[in-house]
């Protein structure tokens, strides 16, 4: 386990609202670390809508999800936040009044005065295919991510999917697998053209197999797969003997560990006080799509407002000795210095 990282605030979620929280906190001299399960910043904007237009950001008639993310990254640059991407927060503990210890699934540990949950719809996690009886195999011989390639050495592998994840893992694992079979529902791949050509060459050379269809049935015992049945568009069945299966069907949002953090949830949402966006636990805030209060709208602009009010209250915990004077970036030289423009 690495050394504890000490900071003022940990923000969980690097979507638009988590990013803007860095700005509002930064103006109040509060430093932040951000943790996100995705391997990139921007949250849903980057994962679901990078090229889709957004029309309801005040004063910006049209911006794409990626455009908004890029603009927010430029706006918060003066505050130099630290990002921890591809990690999921698993535990939040109260160890002071208020001091929090935050732990990720990679074993990173943070200590901070306040925690801001800006987790949107929860954490993006791999979609699980609805193959009957798949559950006992998950984590043993069915995997949604590759942690150690060596675990697949000399195994008969089945990879499912038609995108870059499926193709990239095909290329990484094909040389060490005993035999690799790629399954996709149609003979048309959305992965990069060069990757698709490379895969077709491997198939033509007999170095791997390609089956067009959908996995309909699994065989095995005690979590260990022995075979999978693939059904094609005409319902013809092919049985393939396999030791492990890697399905790549993209991501879906799941509430994830938030459910275990001791909040009273309203459905899958965290109730907050509307003047501070603090949860029922002091020093623990929830902003953006993950929170709820009377009249809540899941809009990016609402999340921005919530970030501003949250920062005022967080200041109370991070700098209890300092009086907070409300200032405008337009006229305050002290704020302009922080932004690097004065």
């Amino acid at each position, binding site marked *: 386990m690495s050394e504890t990282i000490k900071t003022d605030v940990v923000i969980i979620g690097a979507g638009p609202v988590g990013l803007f929280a860095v700005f509002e906190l930064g103006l109040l001299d509060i430093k932040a670390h951000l943790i996100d399960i995705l391997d990139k910043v921007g949250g849903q904007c980057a994962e*679901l809508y990078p090229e889709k237009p957004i029309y309801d950001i005040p004063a910006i008639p049209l911006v794409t999800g990626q455009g908004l993310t890029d603009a927010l990254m430029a706006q918060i640059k003066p505050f130099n936040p630290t990002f921890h991407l591809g990690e999921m927060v698993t535990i939040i503990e109260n160890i002071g009044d208020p001091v929090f210890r935050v732990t990720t699934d990679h074993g990173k540990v943070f200590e901070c005065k306040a925690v801001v949950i800006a987790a949107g719809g929860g954490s993006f996690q791999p*979609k699980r295919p*609805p193959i009957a009886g798949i559950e006992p195999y998950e984590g043993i011989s069915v995997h949604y991510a590759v942690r150690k390639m060596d675990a697949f050495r000399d195994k008969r592998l089945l990879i499912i999917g038609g*995108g870059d994840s499926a193709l990239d893992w095909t290329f990484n694992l094909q040389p060490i697998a005993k035999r690799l079979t790629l399954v996709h*529902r*149609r003979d048309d791949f*959305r992965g990069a053209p060069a990757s698709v050509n490379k895969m077709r060459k491997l198939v033509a050379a007999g170095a791997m197999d390609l089956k067009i269809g959908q996995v309909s049935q699994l065989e095995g015992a005690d979590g260990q797969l022995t075979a999978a049945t693939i059904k094609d568009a005409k319902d013809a069945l092919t049985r393939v003997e396999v030791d492990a299966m890697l399905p790549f*069907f*993209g991501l*879906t949002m799941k509430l994830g560990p938030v459910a275990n953090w001791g909040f009273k949830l309203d459905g899958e949402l965290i109730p907050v006080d509307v003047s501070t966006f603090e949860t029922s636990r002091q020093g623990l805030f929830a902003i953006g799509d993950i929170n709820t209060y009377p009249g809540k709208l899941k809009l990016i602009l609402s999340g921005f407002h919530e970030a501003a009010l949250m920062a005022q209250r967080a200041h109370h915990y991070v700098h209890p000795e300092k009086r907070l004077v409300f200032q405008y970036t337009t006229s305050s030289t002290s704020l302009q210095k922080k932004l690097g423009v004065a």
Partner: protein
Amino acid sequence: MPKISYIEHDGTVHTVEADLGSTVMETALRNGISSIVAECGGGCTCATCMVYVDEAWSATVGPPSAEEEEQLDSAFEVKPTSRLSCQIKVTGALDGLIVRTPAYQGR
């Protein structure tokens, strides 16, 4: 207004009125048909609003676009009649449309 019938996996039938110009997904959400999830809200980016278009209606509704076909790769138990309901615009020609929803949308 055109009427659309949604038949859920367990056989429950919801016949509802749809606004012209809205989508089959939006109409489902407005009427509380929870077997259409629509995680991305209609952006053709999540494949959690898949429906099976009734075969008698398949030709009228038409095939998916290339972008939608790519998204269908992330759906489950995809059939030749599968469409993402956020990509089906309600027109007068769709009055009486029948779609079936799958048991599972991926979440």
